[in-house]
């Protein structure tokens, strides 16, 4: 048993950390305020290879492991939760299902433009009436010669605004419930895909959260991912992996807020002493750090389990549950330690607090995670 990162992982960690310090941290406030990640930054993240971390070199990826991917998302999220989820949703929710379930032809065609970031990936599952209840999808498809014709609505599509490559879920027959769902690889610039809006949100405001209407969208039959009726399984397995990414994002947000709170507590003087000398602040720091460290252990362990092809569904649910609740707790306390300054944009912890909340919601709410964990215990 070894709890040390390998030297290769440390090289990766410090390289990404340097990149984030220079390229992302200085503009994180601007990204939040502009509701947009500058194209120039997306380009730099592509050049760094952040969008293809664990995908094999044969498809244009870096060929690293899942732990490397978690470290990338963590380090980026320390400075900017929006940039973190861009990488996470892209990698876990679009690249991964193609890699896991795609044919060799599909992988060769769709992965290279994704892992190099020429296309940004997204996942079109949620609908106005179907969130946690995936089997209730109302988007339907019919076969028409060499095409599938898809109609319906999709909402809360992370990265949707880039109109890159989407993994889209639709039902052949709603009465079949989850057995009727299939997955498709979709070019979101296609005719029949209407971008309705990018949502205005509490946090991760630099990340696109997009609503689409699908009106007779024609998808070639070769873009069916897996087999017909396999969509529910693809969605669930994809989300299992995605939770490692969101756990890493939540971990990074928590660490970013903690670093600031710790530094501030040593600088800020009240009653003639740094507030870090007050036990009320010391205990907060101790609680925050304890939760961060336990989150890190379970995020890294989930990544290790997936990498080693061991069952990881319950662990990834626990890592996402624990890290996301840690993120909202730690960012909240970070504001409290900053006092009034914590409420001010310039000090950044207010943004991290807003960014943290979504990690308890997307890719399965905390309630769904508890359901998954308890089912694993009791089945």
């Amino acid at each position, binding site marked *: 048993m070894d709890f040390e990162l390998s030297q*290769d992982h440390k090289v990766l960690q410090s*390289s990404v950390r340097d*990149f984030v310090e220079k390229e992302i941290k200085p503009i994180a406030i601007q990204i939040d305020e502009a509701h947009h990640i500058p194209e120039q930054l997306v380009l730099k993240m592509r050049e760094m290879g952040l969008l293809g971390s664990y995908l094999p*070199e044969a498809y244009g990826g870096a*060929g690293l492991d899942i732990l490397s991917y978690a470290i990338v998302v963590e380090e980026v999220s320390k400075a900017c939760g929006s940039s973190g989820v861009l990488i996470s949703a892209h990698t876990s929710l679009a690249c991964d299902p193609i890699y896991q379930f795609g044919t060799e032809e599909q992988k060769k065609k769709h992965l290279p433009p994704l892992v190099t970031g020429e296309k940004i990936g997204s996942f079109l599952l949620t609908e106005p009436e179907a969130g946690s209840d995936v089997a209730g999808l109302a988007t339907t498809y019919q076969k028409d010669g060499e095409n599938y014709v898809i109609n319906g609505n999709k909402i809360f599509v992370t990265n949707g605004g880039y109109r890159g490559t989407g993994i889209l879920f639709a039902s052949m027959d709603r009465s079949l419930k989850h057995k009727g769902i299939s997955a498709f690889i979709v070019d979101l610039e296609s005719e029949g895909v209407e971008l309705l809006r990018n949502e205005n949100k509490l946090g991760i405001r630099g990340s696109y959260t997009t609503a689409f209407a699908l009106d007779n969208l024609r998808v070639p039959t070769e873009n069916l991912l897996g087999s017909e009726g396999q969509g529910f399984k693809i969605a669930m397995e994809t989300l299992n992996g995605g939770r490692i990414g969101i756990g890493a994002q939540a971990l990074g947000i928590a660490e970013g807020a903690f670093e600031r709170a710790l530094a501030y507590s040593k600088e800020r003087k009240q009653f003639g002493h740094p507030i870090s000398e007050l036990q009320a602040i010391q205990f907060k720091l101790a609680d925050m750090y304890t939760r961060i460290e336990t989150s890190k252990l379970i995020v890294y362990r989930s990544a290790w389990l997936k990498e080693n092809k061991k069952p990881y569904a319950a662990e990834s649910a626990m890592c996402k549950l624990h890290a996301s609740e840690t993120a909202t707790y730690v960012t909240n306390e970070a504001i409290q330690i900053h006092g009034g300054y914590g409420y001010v944009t310039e000090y950044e912890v207010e943004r991290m607090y807003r960014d943290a909340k979504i990690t308890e919601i997307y890719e399965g709410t905390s309630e769904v995670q508890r359901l998954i964990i308890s089912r694993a215990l009791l089945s």
Partner: protein
Amino acid sequence: MKMLVCIKQVPDMESRFRVNSEGIWYDEQDLAFRMNEYDEYAVEQAIRVKEQLGGAADITILSIGPDRVVEAIKKGLAMGSDRGVHIKDEHLYQKDPWQVASVIAAFARGKNFDLVFTGLQSQDRGSAQVGVIVAELLGYACATTLVGFELSGEVVTARRELEGGIRGIVKFKLPAVVTCQLGLNNPRYPTLPNIMKAKQKELLAFPIMGFLSEESATATERMYPPEKKGRGLVLEGDINETADKLVSILKEKTTVLR
């Protein structure tokens, strides 16, 4: 074109330093280490020469120290160097610049390196001696404090940073040792694919005993944090007078208003 880049791994300079139990160095416990910043410029410059010359150029990265320095070597490999050399030494901090330079020269002798790059100084010891001693021991030309570097055939044209904002241009023939100043270039980030490729690159390890034959020329007697001086100068009183006073201080004691 054979190039050698000598790098050191140093603590993150934002660390809190404590003197170790021997009283001659800092306590390494709980410190995070990274490549000496000056050496990053050295690695980058070597890679630029390689890019300029194409396939015929070859870069060896060398570092002396305990196992942790392999991280810095791997970063150099991921930036684009060809092979790493780790000279293993658990007690590097006890060696003076003369010994360190002698070890590097002992490694490099007979290997026909055309160019040796290193940082101007290390961020932890800061002696700025190792590069120049290596040049002397190998009988190479040497230029220090480089902020500009151009190679044309066998001739290097280097821009040096001098005190008071002055620059100097020096020309010299290979083989040569150059020490690199901050701002020489813009060191690249190792990309993820290059971090992966670096895992396949040759990494040789040698015990230091094979290269160490010199006694130290200087010995550190004591390392200590300086006594805390009194607080800084506080100007008080009428705002116009204090403003005038501030301007005159800035004029007399700094270059800000010259």
